């Protein structure tokens, strides 16, 4: 069976193989091809770069190019065409030109060869010149070597032909890249023994040192002689020096000195040049001839700077023109002078040889800058070169501040004038003399100076400029250097403006008057442009656009409904702009102002269907600015009024019939407790009869309405502690407006009403305080406001003793020390699972043994606490600690309860409450801030409870404290932390540098506006 099976299997495999072979054979026949090896040829460079290949074949061709072997030097590239060499130059070149590396190892190397810049002289592919040079040989050399030197009247023959006659192109062991030693080189052409040669050299035997007298390239003189020749040589007077000393060869300095002074006697006295004193004539002079005046050994600038190198390293800045030109002798003598530094003339007179003295004399009404007056140019300027402009010896700002040190301190102000910040004093001041005060370039009174930069102000001058602007008194308002207010203002805008505008000052400081908010806040520039506009009173915009910038809501119906014409055209028709005696700054009382335009005649009566008009004024029903309807009626309308059904409420005489008449339509609520106006049918006490701005036709919103009657309760708004709904004017959170089944018109029973918000009070605990259990919250608490914490009726101890007889309480406690009377320090006033409603967290000694802490006569001190709480002792020893006394209690008991606490930390109350007992003012500072820190209740999130090394007792520094929550800011893009210093105080940059974590008026709790003002505190210019 298995045999048979295996035969079948073999047949199946053979058949399968045959089918596969057959399939591929047929496939090949159909396609007409048999499978072949891929023989596609890699593209040659010339397939694409045929034009280059052709151009490279012209003239002398580089061997690899000639052979078409581009890849000798180049790597093929892919889709993106880049030129890639097989190895970098000059290594690539040296691979074939093997003699070159050897030549560039020689003593003197041609600069391009030394730098491996073969292509500075050679072409890489082909050239019309020999050696693939880029240009004809001479022209090529002249690209770097100044041609004038080689083109004088008499040119040395090889120079006219080829430079390489004498010079090696890459490297040489001899100076100036000569092929051979100089004497050998010259001897190639010049026979030193020839009679003519000897005759030309006055019979002297000359075999070397040709260049001491001759220029090897070209000269204006015959015989290629150098232009300045020692007079003794001319005419063959060599013996005048050489015979005397009987020498030919090296001479000592003393010998040379005595030789020179035999003709050039030394000067005695004055200031002497050191080589001159030492007889080191050859330090500066050549012996026989030179290209330079006075047979100087080298160009003057080079010669001088070999010793006087003070300014040679200065790359940027300024060079004194003579120093730049190497014309040292325009200011200095070479051998001696009557003046220090070998100056040709002393003091400023030297400077005035070139610089027009008239600019420094203070003639006319000009005053001289003190250093100028004293002729001390070098107090500010360098003589030769300086890294700064105008040869200043320091950066301009630093230089000026070195004397004007009082001004220097201003740089740290928060707002700094740009030129001042940049130390560019000369943009405003003349450094030498000026007829304007403070050496200004131009008189500020003429505005010219300021307007050079502040061109936009110039436009204001064409309009109606503010008086100080017109008179050019910029400094009446602005500091010229720096100030601690933006725009360099001398004072805050309001105070500054009021210093001139006395009438406004009266308004701003008047009590009892209604004052426009910008005036009250001293922010005049909200409405006025301080420089000027074409508008009256320099207003920024015309009315009403200007007013709408703040009071946008009054125009809400102007496009879709109706606008009151004066409002939409000129607000000041009805309102005053700065201050007034009437509400809303109206020019007249509201009741009478409409009559100025609207006559109270028959037409008005007819419009109002003959009804008697309200003496309170039109604005009861009409919105004086605009409305959704064409009668300018307020948005919430009484239905009968809306449907012109006057008689539903009024009798035929037009008399008002509010009260019982209201209930004809409005179903009267039933309730045990009824709001007095409701009971007395005085609906109009709370509601408008025709139209109103508030839902329910209320005459006012929230607490403002209630306060009109409940003044006694409203007064409590000034109490130290306020119930939150009361503080926020949400009377209806607790009270119903018409009727209720509960006392004081509460929506619900007292306990239910309170527990709706105070959900954190204990519920379901074993033991409840009786008043709390009965829902009698007002037994202990006030409903609106009071002076005690938690709105308690009395301070906690007095309050408890009202129910709990004091003597009995003392007897029950069996305390080894007198009771403090602060019952809630141990008892939870609402309830607890502990007996006697003791708070949940109990201090161990309290539950165990009172004598552990209380011993006869022993005072409870911090020391006692620290005996167990050792760790806290370390915190108290930090520079900032909470070790303090309150009410004669030492530190620990200021915050902690010694027996039982609400929290595990045994604090006397919630953290925020404990802290605020002392630090309330810290938080008060942030009242009204637009942006405040969230979750400020838990002070210990940021602050250490016992002690800290950081100011404000922060848990860490100003960064680590914040990033413990704001983790993403740990790797903030703006550098902060160790090593990053705030330039203003050289302190570590932290989050607190830019933020006030508790709150500010700026987004993200920033200290200033982040669009610019904050950033430029550090990033000046």
């Amino acid at each position, binding site marked *: 069976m298995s045999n048979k099976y295996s035969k079948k299997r073999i047949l199946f495999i053979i058949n399968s193989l045959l089918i596969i072979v057959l399939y591929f054979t047929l496939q090949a026949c159909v396609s007409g091809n048999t499978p072949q090896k891929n023989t596609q040829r890699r593209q040659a460079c010339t397939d694409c770069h045929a034009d280059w290949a052709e151009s490279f074949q012209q003239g002398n061709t580089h061997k690899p190019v000639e052979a078409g072997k581009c890849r000798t030097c180049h790597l093929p590239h892919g889709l993106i065409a880049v030129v890639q060499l097989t190895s970098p130059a000059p290594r690539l070149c040296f691979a074939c030109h093997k003699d070159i590396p050897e030549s560039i190892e020689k003593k003197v190397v041609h600069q391009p060869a030394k730098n491996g810049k073969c292509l500075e002289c050679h072409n890489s592919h082909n050239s019309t010149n020999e050696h693939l040079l880029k240009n004809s040989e001479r022209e090529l050399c002249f690209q770097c070597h100044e041609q004038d030197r080689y083109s004088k009247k008499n040119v040395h023959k090889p120079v006219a032909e080829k430079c390489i006659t004498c010079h090696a192109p890459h490297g040489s062991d001899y100076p100036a890249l000569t092929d051979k030693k100089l004497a050998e080189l010259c001897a190639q052409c010049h026979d030193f023994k020839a009679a003519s040669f000897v005759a030309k050299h006055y019979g002297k035997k000359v075999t070397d040192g040709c260049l001491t007298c001759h220029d090897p390239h070209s000269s204006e003189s015959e015989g290629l002689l150098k232009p300045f020749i020692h007079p003794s040589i001319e005419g063959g007077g060599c013996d005048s020096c050489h015979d005397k000393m009987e020498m030919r060869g090296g001479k000592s300095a003393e010998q040379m000195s005595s030789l020179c002074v035999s003709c050039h006697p030394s000067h005695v006295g004055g200031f002497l040049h050191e080589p001159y004193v030492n007889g080191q004539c050859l330090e500066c002079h050549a012996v026989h001839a030179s290209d330079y005046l006075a047979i100087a050994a080298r160009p003057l600038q080079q010669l001088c700077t070999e010793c006087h190198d003070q300014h040679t390293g200065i790359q940027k800045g300024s060079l004194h023109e003579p120093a730049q030109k190497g014309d040292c002798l325009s200011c200095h003598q070479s051998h001696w002078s009557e003046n220090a530094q070998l100056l040709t003339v002393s003091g400023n007179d030297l400077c005035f040889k070139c610089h027009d003295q008239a600019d420094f004399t203070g003639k006319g009404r000009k005053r001289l800058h003190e250093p100028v007056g004293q002729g001390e140019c070098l107090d500010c300027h360098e003589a030769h070169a300086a890294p700064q402009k105008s040869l200043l010896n320091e950066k301009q700002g630093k230089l000026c501040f070195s004397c004007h040190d009082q001004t220097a301190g201003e740089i740290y102000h928060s707002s700094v004038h740009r030129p001042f910040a940049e130390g560019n004093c000369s943009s405003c001041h003349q450094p030498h003399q000026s007829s304007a005060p403070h050496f200004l370039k131009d008189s500020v009174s003429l505005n010219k100076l300021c307007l050079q930069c502040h061109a936009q102000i110039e436009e204001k001058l064409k309009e109606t400029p503010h008086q100080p602007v017109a008179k050019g008194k910029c400094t009446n308002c602005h500091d010229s250097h720096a100030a601690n207010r933006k725009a360099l203002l001398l004072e805050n805008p309001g105070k500054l403006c009021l210093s001139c505008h006395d009438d406004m000052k009266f308004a701003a400081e008047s009590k009892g008057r209604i004052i426009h908010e910008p005036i009250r806040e001293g922010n005049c520039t909200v409405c006025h442009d301080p420089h000027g506009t074409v508008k009256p009173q320099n207003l920024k915009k015309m009315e009403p656009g200007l007013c709408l910038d703040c009071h946008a809501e009054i125009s809400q119906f102007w496009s879709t409904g109706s606008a009151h014409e004066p409002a939409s055209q000129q607000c000041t028709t009805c309102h005053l702009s700065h201050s007034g005696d009437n509400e809303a700054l109206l020019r007249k009382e509201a009741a009478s102002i409409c009559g100025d335009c609207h006559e109270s005649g028959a037409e008005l009566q007819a419009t109002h269907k003959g009804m008697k008009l309200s003496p309170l004024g039109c604005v009861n029903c009409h919105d004086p600015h605009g409305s959704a309807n064409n009668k300018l009626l307020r948005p919430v309308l009484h239905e009968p009024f809306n449907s012109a059904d006057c008689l539903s409420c009024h009798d035929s005489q037009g008399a008002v019939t509010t009260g019982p008449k209201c209930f004809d339509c409005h179903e009267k609520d039933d309730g045990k407790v009824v709001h007095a106006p409701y009971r007395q049918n005085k609906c109009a006490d709370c509601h408008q009869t025709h139209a109103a701005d508030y839902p329910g036709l209320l005459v006012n919103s929230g607490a403002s309405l209630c306060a009109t009657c409940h003044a006694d309760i409203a007064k409590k708004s000034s109490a130290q502690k306020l119930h939150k709904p009361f503080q926020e004017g949400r009377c209806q959170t607790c009270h119903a407006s018409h009727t209720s089944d509960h006392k004081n018109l509460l929506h619900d029973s007292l306990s239910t009403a309170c527990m709706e918000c105070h959900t954190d009070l204990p519920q379901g605990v074993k033991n409840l305080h009786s008043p709390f259990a009965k829902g009698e919250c007002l037994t202990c608490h006030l409903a609106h406001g009071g002076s005690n914490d938690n709105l308690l009726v009395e301070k906690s101890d007095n309050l408890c003793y009202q129910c709990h007889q004091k003597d009995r309480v003392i007897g029950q406690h069996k305390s080894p020390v007198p009771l403090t009377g602060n019952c809630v320090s141990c008892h939870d006033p609402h309830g607890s699972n502990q007996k006697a409603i003791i708070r949940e967290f109990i201090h161990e000694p309290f539950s165990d043994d009172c004598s552990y802490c209380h011993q006869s006569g022993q005072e409870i001190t911090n020391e006692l606490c620290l005996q167990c709480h050792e760790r806290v002792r370390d915190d108290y020893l930090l520079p900032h600690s909470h070790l303090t006394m309150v009410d*004669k209690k030492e530190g620990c008991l200021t915050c902690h309860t010694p027996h039982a606490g609400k929290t595990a930390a045994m604090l006397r109350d919630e953290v925020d409450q404990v802290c605020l007992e002392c630090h309330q003012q810290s938080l008060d500072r942030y009242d009204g801030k637009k942006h405040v820190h969230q979750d400020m209740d838990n002070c210990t999130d940021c602050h250490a409870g016992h002690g800290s090394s950081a100011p404000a007792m922060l848990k860490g520094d100003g960064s680590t404290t914040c990033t413990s929550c704001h983790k993403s800011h740990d790797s903030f893009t703006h550098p902060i932390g160790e090593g990053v210093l705030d330039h203003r105080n050289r302190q570590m940059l932290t989050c607190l540098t830019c933020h006030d974590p508790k709150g500010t008026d700026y987004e993200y709790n920033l200290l200033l506006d982040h669009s610019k003002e904050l950033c430029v505190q550090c990033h000046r210019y």
Partner: protein
Amino acid sequence: MSRLFYRISKYIFLVAFLIVATDTSVWAWNHHLSLYSATGDPMRVPAGLFIDTEKERYYIIDTGNNRLVSFDKDGNYLQDFNANGKLTAPFDLVKDSLGRLCVIEKGKNTLTTIDLKNKEVTPHTLTYNGSTIIPHRLALVDGTILVLDKNKGGVVVLDKDLQVRSYIPCPDNSEGFVDFVTIAGEIWGLDRGSNSVYRYSINGKLLEKVQLDTSPQHPVALAISPDEHLFILDRHARAVYQFSRTGRLDKKFLEQGFTVGKLFYPILLRFDPWGRLCVVDEGNGRVEIYNR
């Protein structure tokens, strides 16, 4: 004639009174003591200032860097000194009659003497009636060292061996002095709780209580000007309150900020012998100096 003379005299007296009673002078920033341009680390949370009148030197206690930094009268940096790294959170300093530097080291809760000649650093733990004193501020009266005890808020008078000679407790109803200064042999203590300044004799006799008519937010330091105006430094408001000798607020000046002349976390206020007002600012790491 005599009537005219009387009238003129009356006017002169009135004008003179107004000039004396109304201090219209302005405190302007003069310079600061800092290490902005000197080499080395800038100061970190400096907490104290001692002025050596004889040598005309300021010594700033650079708490964060555990060192003392000295400046000359013109604000030029002179040198810094860390007692070979032996100081731990130094907080205040005086120089006693023996020429020793006496430094409060918060980190050790000691009054540490530094004998510069013998190069000896000796910490002393102060106790009184078995209770450890927590030194907070120092002052001198004729070479005698006085220490403000932060634990109980009173002032400790030490003898030359740094043993407690007497203890001047803070008055009843007080939260303890937060700062004190000595003027003409008398002690002036600032009590935050009662918003008052108390004046004591060196023997501990209460001579006077000056009730301030305005409460600063968080007063931390007291200075008395040569003309006996009271200056209170408010750390939270970053301002100085100037009161008359009777406690009437004359003016409030200075503001929060980082640039020179402004305050971030000011901690100490002192007058230097040249009538200039010095404010040690922890937050900005410098001492600001103002003059009229």
